[in-house]
């Protein structure tokens, strides 16, 4: 019993123990922060990759794409009804994005999607801004600018479809905070030139007269949110486009062989209908989404007449497939792969040489396959960084060793007394190890607490630092792909790091504990 009693007593009467506690807790906090941020980063990569691609992606790594996608979709739904839930094509291309009202031009990745299906296969729908507050109003169809105006009663309102959609959202929203947030959003702006819908921080443009829709109908576009927002020095975003603003993209159509075809450049004028937030910076800062058929046509990927009068087949770049609930990712992939081979054999007769070249290179991948290299790299980085910080934390072990060495030196007489009273060598050693364990426990608890506090507020801390000096913005979204530093501490990580810290401080106390066990009581007791 005396071991526990003395360990406890020394813990809270000896000031020096607090240095040990401080060292342990700082190391625990440091390792926990690194582990949580890297782990959170890794998890974000995982969930967001999945959200981005759906379960299975078929693609052939070309810009000209591959044909027969519609036929294969039908074939899949017929042959694998228990495996495949839904399949939707998507076109990937590149262009130059432009806001005519400003001088903004940026390179962009333009994606043609069938909005409804795409939102069902991926988690695309969850990141849409207007769709959230005005459900059912985001579309890639031709549309005019929605304009707020004064009703007969003199109230400033949006067109009634939008007002109605917003009422529905308010009624359905269970989180009062969300409604509060929305009410704080800048709503309309007064009398900006309607031709371009350029605005500042406002969601809608305001016109003179009644609420309604103005200007020419143009195809809708959904923009990556970083194309619409710009980040202030203090980390806040401000919006610079209102819904309906005219945006333009210049495209580069490719023929089946990959040559630039048609009469370039092809220009597409659109109306900004919504913005998408996936949380992945490369996507949010580059990508825009337009209607599949519109883009297919503009890129000449729809059936075209050849010189000999035959028609080319419609092409897509990707086929995104959602599996039925409960179907394993790799199991689904294998089934689809097999179906694809069968499908190619069945259709071998109707394909021409160009089709076969494009189809031959189509790969079936899971979202994990697509992100494997990246995920593996992040995993390695996590292990590496955590080990590095773990190594640095060895300092704590040495420090605990030093502190306990000092304690044993100072307490030689007391150790002698305890031994004279019948304490065994092993018991005395255990006393110091228990003491170190207690230091470790207190340090670990404190460290976990500190680490959690830091991780939970890491983005606020960074914003605070950036306000003092923009150079202090450590997390760069374009480097780490995510616009926020992960803020989650996993319980398992906390427990693991805490236990390691306790073990480490006990290991650190081993040498002093052995020295204490070797104290020869007679020598220790002889003098005052």
């Amino acid at each position, binding site marked *: *019993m*005396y071991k*526990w*009693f*003395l360990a406890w*007593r*020394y813990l809270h*009467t*000896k000031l020096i123990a607090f240095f040990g506690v401080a060292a342990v807790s700082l190391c625990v906090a440091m390792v926990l922060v690194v582990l949580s941020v890297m782990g959170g980063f890794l998890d974000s990569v995982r969930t967001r990759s999945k959200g981005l691609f759906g379960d299975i992606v078929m693609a052939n790594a070309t810009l000209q794409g591959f044909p027969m996608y519609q036929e294969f979709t039908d074939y899949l739904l017929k042959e694998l009804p228990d495996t495949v839930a839904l399949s939707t094509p998507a076109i990937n291309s590149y262009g130059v994005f432009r806001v005519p009202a400003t001088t903004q031009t940026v390179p962009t990745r333009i994606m043609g999607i069938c909005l409804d299906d795409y939102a069902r296969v991926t988690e695309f729908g969850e990141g849409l801004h207007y769709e959230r507050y005005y459900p059912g109003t985001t579309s890639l169809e031709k549309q005019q600018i929605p304009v707020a105006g004064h009703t007969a009663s003199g109230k400033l309102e949006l067109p009634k479809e939008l007002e109605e959609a917003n009422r529905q959202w308010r009624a359905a929203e269970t989180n009062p905070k969300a409604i509060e947030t929305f009410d704080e959003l800048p709503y309309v702006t007064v009398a900006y030139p309607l031709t371009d819908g350029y605005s500042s921080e406002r969601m809608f443009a305001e016109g003179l007269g009644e609420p309604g829709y103005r200007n020419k109908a143009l195809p809708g576009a959904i923009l990556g949110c970083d194309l619409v927002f710009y980040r202030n020095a203090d980390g806040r975003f401000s919006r610079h486009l209102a819904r309906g603003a005219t945006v333009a993209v210049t495209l580069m159509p490719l023929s089946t062989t990959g040559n630039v075809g048609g009469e370039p450049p092809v220009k597409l004028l659109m109306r900004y209908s919504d913005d998408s937030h996936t949380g992945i910076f490369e996507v949010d800062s580059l990508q825009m989404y337009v209607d599949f058929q519109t883009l297919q046509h503009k890129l000449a990927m729809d059936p075209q007449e050849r010189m000999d009068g035959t028609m080319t087949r419609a092409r897509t770049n990707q086929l995104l497939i959602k599996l039925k609930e409960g179907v394993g990712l790799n199991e689904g992939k294998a089934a689809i792969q097999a179906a694809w081979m069968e499908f190619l054999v069945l259709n071998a007769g109707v394909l021409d040489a160009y089709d076969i070249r494009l189809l031959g290179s189509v790969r079936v991948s899971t979202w994990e396959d697509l992100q494997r290299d990246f995920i593996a790299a992040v995993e390695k980085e996590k292990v590496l960084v955590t080990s590095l910080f773990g190594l640095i934390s060895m300092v704590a072990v040495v420090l605990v060793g030093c502190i306990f060495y000092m304690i044993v030196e100072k307490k030689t*007489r*007391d150790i*002698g*007394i*305890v031994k*004279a*009273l*019948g*304490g*065994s*060598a092993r*018991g005395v050693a255990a006393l110091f190890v228990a003491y170190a364990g207690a230091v470790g426990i207190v340090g670990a608890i404190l460290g976990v607490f500190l680490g959690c506090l830091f991780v939970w507020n890491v983005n606020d801390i960074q914003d605070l630092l950036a306000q003092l000096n923009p150079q202090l913005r450590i997390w760069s979204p374009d480097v780490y792909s995510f616009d926020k530093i992960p803020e989650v501490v996993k319980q398992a990580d906390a427990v693991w790091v805490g236990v390691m810290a306790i073990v480490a401080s006990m290991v650190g106390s081993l040498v002093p504990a052995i020295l204490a066990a070797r104290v020869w*009581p*007679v020598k220790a*007791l*002889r*003098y*005052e």
Partner: protein
Amino acid sequence: MLKAHNIHKSYKMGPSELRVLRGVGLSAERGEFLVIMGSSGSGKSTLLHILGALDTPDQGSVEFGGRRLFDMPTSLREQFRNREVGFVFQFYHLLPELTVLENVLLPALVKHSFFSWFKNRSDTRRAAAKMLDRVGLLQRVKHRPAELSGGERQRVAIARALINSPSLLLADEPTGNLDASMGADILNLLTELNKDGQTVVMVTHDPVVAKRAHRVVSLHDGEIVEPEMVSSGLLPA
């Protein structure tokens, strides 16, 4: 009860050897108050430590209640130190971080395992309170050793030595660091304890102190010199 036979102990001092004990033989009976005298450096403390199994002799044996101490395994010897002997030192040797009560409880804490401590806690606390009452320090249980006078500290040390009701009390110059009146207090306390049946073996070089004993032996040149002086003859029959 206690029998030492032909104890040798020497210390290496560089190339030469300092032979402190050269064949000491000694015995103490139950209920006896035995004093070991000798000049400074004669080896009294060394002998006492060996009698209490704190130190090991180079040669010779110590028997306690028929068992040879230095043939026992270490763990039994530790148990012997904890339960059968109580030590009182010249410099008190209390733990400064602990209160008076905790210092007294320390041997009991050593005796009990974690669980048996909680089982016996109230009994042990009562015993400690009784001991502290006996030495007249019941009012000071919450104090730290630094807040006590030398005499009070030595009384705490005596209470601590007796908490596990040992059959043998070994005192190494318990009054050596105290002025005459405080020393007398301590001696009275030891005499009283002895009257109640406690076997006491005490080391001193002060002939006045030695007068309290039933029997006095002297250590001279590493050997016990025959009893040169027997006190009032109160040796139990």
